[in-house]
């Protein structure tokens, strides 16, 4: 498999806080990768760097073998990098359908009835179809999370970045979400998923990357990585910290 995304020596600091410290990793086409790490480890910042919302201090990002380090956020999006936000950020004044339609027509490059049909398919898949005409500002948290994913999917991404999409969901809802993500994966979309709900993550991803203080501290097969000393140290804590 060729590499879809390649992050090389990526660094970013806010003053003394390093959110990315010489990060290097490759994501293969069609792969599903989970990112784990304690709060403030730099996971969301990493997504911001990949989508272009943040500019890196140094290092490069290659996407489809092209250097996109200096590309704008909208250009990266049009090239197929989409994300969902941990804290849902819909266009509150617009309906669910319109939110997704913006994504489909702008980033997805579709138009007219084709775009509308595609949005219907996406909403059907994410279970929001019956709420299409509701203003997104009045959705519940769960539905906002669904909208985050729907909107990202409506851009027809090649690389989908999911930021704690399962957080706050019930067991049953989580199961539906896992099925939904598995379907997305089966359709050939590459996924990078930040998640604290470990069992959900383990059900989907085939590789784990563990980050702390902006540095990659473990990487590899999920089962082995989750049991590694580095992960135990972060999550279970050598100094009696709270378990994950």
């Amino acid at each position, binding site marked *: 498999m060729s590499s879809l995304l390649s992050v090389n020596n990526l660094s970013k600091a806010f003053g003394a806080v390093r959110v990315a410290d010489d990060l290097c990793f490759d994501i293969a086409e069609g792969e599903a990768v989970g990112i784990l790490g304690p709060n403030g480890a730099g996971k969301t910042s990493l997504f911001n760097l990949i989508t272009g919302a943040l500019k890196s201090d140094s290092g490069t990002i290659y996407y489809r073998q092209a250097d996109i380090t200096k590309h704008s956020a909208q250009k990266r999006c049009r090239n197929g990098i989409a994300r969902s936000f941990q804290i849902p950020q819909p*266009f509150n004044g617009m309906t669910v359908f319109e939110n997704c339609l913006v994504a489909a027509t702008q980033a997805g490059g579709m138009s007219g009835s084709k775009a509308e049909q595609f949005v219907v398919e996406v909403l059907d898949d994410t279970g929001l179809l019956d709420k299409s005409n509701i203003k997104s500002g009045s959705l519940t948290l769960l539905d906002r999370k669904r909208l985050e994913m729907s909107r990202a999917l409506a851009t027809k991404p090649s690389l989908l970045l999911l930021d704690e999409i399962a957080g706050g969901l019930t067991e049953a809802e989580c199961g539906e979400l896992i099925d939904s993500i598995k379907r997305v994966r089966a359709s050939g979309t590459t996924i990078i998923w930040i998640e604290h709900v470990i069992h959900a993550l383990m059900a989907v991803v085939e590789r784990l990357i563990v980050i702390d203080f902006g540095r990659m501290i473990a990487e590899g097969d999920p089962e082995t990585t989750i049991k590694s000393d580095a992960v135990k140290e972060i999550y279970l804590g050598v100094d009696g910290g709270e378990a994950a």
Partner: protein
Amino acid sequence: MDWLNAIVQGVLLGGLYALFASGLSLIFGVMRLVNIAHGDLIVLAAYLALSTTLILGVHPFTAILVVIPLMALIGYVLQRGVLNHTLGDDILPPLLVTFGLSVFLQNALLEGYTADPQKLNVGSLETASVSVGELSIGLLPLSTFVVAIVVIVFLQWIFYHTALGRQFRAVSDNADIAQLMGLSKGHIFGLALALSLVVCGIAGILLGARTSFDPAVGSGRLIFAFEAVIIGGLGNLWGTLIGGIVLGVAQTIGGKINPGWQLLAGHVVFLLILAIRPRGFFPRVEH
């Protein structure tokens, strides 16, 4: 009957004010930009129409075919070249830059066209009127009012029924997220100002057909536009029309009482409304 006549004239005048105001309202809605040069851009459009009629020898209403694309182009280039760089968390830079632009435009027009008052000659339409009962309604004010309604319907249609409108609303809602959906903020803002200046173009020609104008009248038009927007309630185009009408009626009734009170009456009514309903009659409800 005189009073009724004054009210009808005021309502029709309100159409022109609504035209002044809707372009201002539009860009404030999309990008929170207060364009101090708005009035001067209306006057610029009137002068462009004047030049077009003189050079090509066409009727001022035909000149619209030249003025509108020109204003749209000016708007897009102005936004992408200048105003986009002023937008940010601080609202002061765009205010200062558009104020500077206002001074620049006034002086450029003064240099190019002198301070002599000019008028767009629209021929017999200027004096033509229709009689309704005992009322005599001028065709030009009436058509201005109709144009205002058509423009507002058109803007509403763009905003709520087209892909471009969705982009405007998405960027207005959250510009940063919109960029992650593949929208180019700079481009959308450029299109918004282009659209705003298209409305300025229409307003400028109707202004020039109605009254004489000189390079200094822009700031007065800006005040009327602000007043109409605020009376009607920010972000609501139909409210803006109502605001324009309230202002127009106040002015004509004031002028009826005493010719010197025309502008004063408009401003007094505006201040009263501001005191009673600080957010205007129809502030933006969540769409």
